[in-house]
């Protein structure tokens, strides 16, 4: 089985993000970029499937600006076999929306014919949480989102999902799209020898136009603002007062 993992280049999670003065988005100039952490988990899971013999090949795909090849090299250094870069933008500030990404991925998948797509549940930049779901609809494949455990059993996958209030285990037919959550695994970091070897692994480059997908944005960003700073809390005198406040003011019990 071939596993395909889409990976996105996003602002590194350690960076304190700044909103651009004109409110059109966040500032990406001279900002450290890395692989979306959820995608790293997906890459790790795919490599583990290969290591236990459940998969033969791991292909990683990134869509966006040319610089996304750094993200692909990172995935190759972790242990992916081959990479595909679909160039869909020149400007780093142009975000490719989930539907366009899903359409591009579908075109790649039609060529590659993987048995499983493992994707991050969302990217930490826009938090859309939509690409995996849209992709499964376009492909007509089964989907399992927010996976915290994955077992391949013959022609189906057993997936434990993190849902409100607990865990749900479902069985889906392969091929399928699985989006992964934080607790699925602890991704490895690449060893230096593997980083050197990754230079020699194949990285194909295509464009969105090659695949016949229009990436013109459908959404309009109205404004971008920083979240409000945290406000000081209050002290309550007694448990009774706390319960009253939770009931009457916060409305949570």
């Amino acid at each position, binding site marked *: 089985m071939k596993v395909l993992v889409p990976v996105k280049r996003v602002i590194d999670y350690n960076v304190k993000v700044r909103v651009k003065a004109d409110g059109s988005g966040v500032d990406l100039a001279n900002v450290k970029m*890395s692989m979306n952490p959820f995608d790293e988990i997906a890459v790790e899971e795919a490599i583990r499937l290969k290591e236990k013999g459940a998969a033969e090949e791991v292909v990683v795909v990134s869509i966006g600006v040319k*610089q996304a090849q*750094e993200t692909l*090299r*990172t995935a190759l*250094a972790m242990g992916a076999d081959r990479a595909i870069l679909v160039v869909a933008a020149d400007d780093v500030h142009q975000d490719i929306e989930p539907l366009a990404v899903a359409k591009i991925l579908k075109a790649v998948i039609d060529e590659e014919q993987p048995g499983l797509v493992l994707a991050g549940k969302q990217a930490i930049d826009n938090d859309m949480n939509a690409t995996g779901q849209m992709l499964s609809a376009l492909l007509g494949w089964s989907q399992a989102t927010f996976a915290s455990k994955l077992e391949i059993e013959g022609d189906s996958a057993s997936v434990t999902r993190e849902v409100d209030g607990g865990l749900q285990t479902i069985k889906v037919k392969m091929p399928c799209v699985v989006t992964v959550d934080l607790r699925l695994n602890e991704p490895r*970091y*690449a*060893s*230096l*020898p593997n*980083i*050197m070897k990754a*230079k020699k692994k194949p990285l194909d480059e295509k464009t969105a136009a090659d695949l016949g997908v229009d990436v013109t944005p459908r959404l309009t960003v109205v404004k971008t603002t920083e979240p409000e700073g945290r406000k000081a809390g209050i002290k309550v005198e007694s448990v009774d007062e706390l319960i009253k406040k939770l009931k009457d003011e916060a409305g949570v019990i």
Partner: protein
Amino acid sequence: MNEQIEQEQMILDSVDKFLRTDVDPYVHDLEAKDEYPAEIVEKMKEMGLFGCIISEDYGGLGLSTQTYAKIIERISRSWMSVSGIINSHLIMASAVQRAGTQAQKSEYLPRFATGELRGGIGLTEPDAGTDLQAIRTVAVKDGEDYVVNGTKTWITNSMYGNTIALLVKTDPKAEPRHRGMSLLIAEKGPGFNVARKLEKLGYRGIDTCELEFKDYRVPADRLIGGVEGRGLQQILSGLELGRINVAARGVGVARAALDMAVAYAQQRKTFGKPIGEHQAIQLMLGEMATRTEAARLLTDNAARAYDAGERCDMEAGMAKYFATEAAVTNAMDSMRVHGGYGYSREFDIERLYRDAPLLTIGEGTNELQRIIIAKQIMERNPA
């Protein structure tokens, strides 16, 4: 982005992840117990750090000294002791890579690169440190072997490592004295005894020991380069790499002290505002940050010259001297910024304060560095 810059960035990112995951959480405990970081060493082998500057032809990574210095800076920012595990190991390896016979390179470099053979350099003796030509350890040829007798001290990596580049006198009567000095690849065996582990103010966790050689036999083909009398030159030309390593350690410690001070200055409040808003603290932060950056640039410049094959004893000396003094001063200043907490064992500042002074002494004292700089500056600018 140019491919080399991209690759260096990936390497440094991976080193950062390694440090965050497998080093940082354990430093405080291991250092408090003066415990050897055995698990960290295993991870360092997997990471490929033991071969980072060994040529790709011999199973290493062939990284530049500039990249190597950046790796050492990061490691030392987490824990200086860990950087010592690869420093003298790589000085040994680079001596073999530069001066070894073809057979020695093929036999040893790939095993140094994986960390299968791991160790350092055996130079210092109880009565000879800076003045290396005064060493008394003697190797006498006996058939196919050298028979070694003597004592070495302050030998890093000698308890848990298994191989050292051992500086000996093959002709104790030679004049000038260095003509009688040779370098042997000494793997542990009968007569190679670790006498004791030294107790130190800082730089804990790592094994720094006294060694005794009693009729220890080394096959004669382990003489680096195959010719007697070249040992001092072979090891001295590797010391520039060691000085760049120690300079990078200084940058790492200086940066750790700075980072901790910057974070603390924004959290701790006095008189209703964060202490970082008081000028007394700002002056210290301003000096600490500038010192760190200057130290980094000097180190990078020395590494660049070393990579280019230029003469760099003065550059490496300047970097070593300045960066290690920066580490000492920043550790003290950071302690002042932290006030009472800086003096407490709960915080890491006091570790930096104990670790930093070693850097001004080891790998050529800072007094010696200034003399080297002065002599070079006159030699390069004759009146």
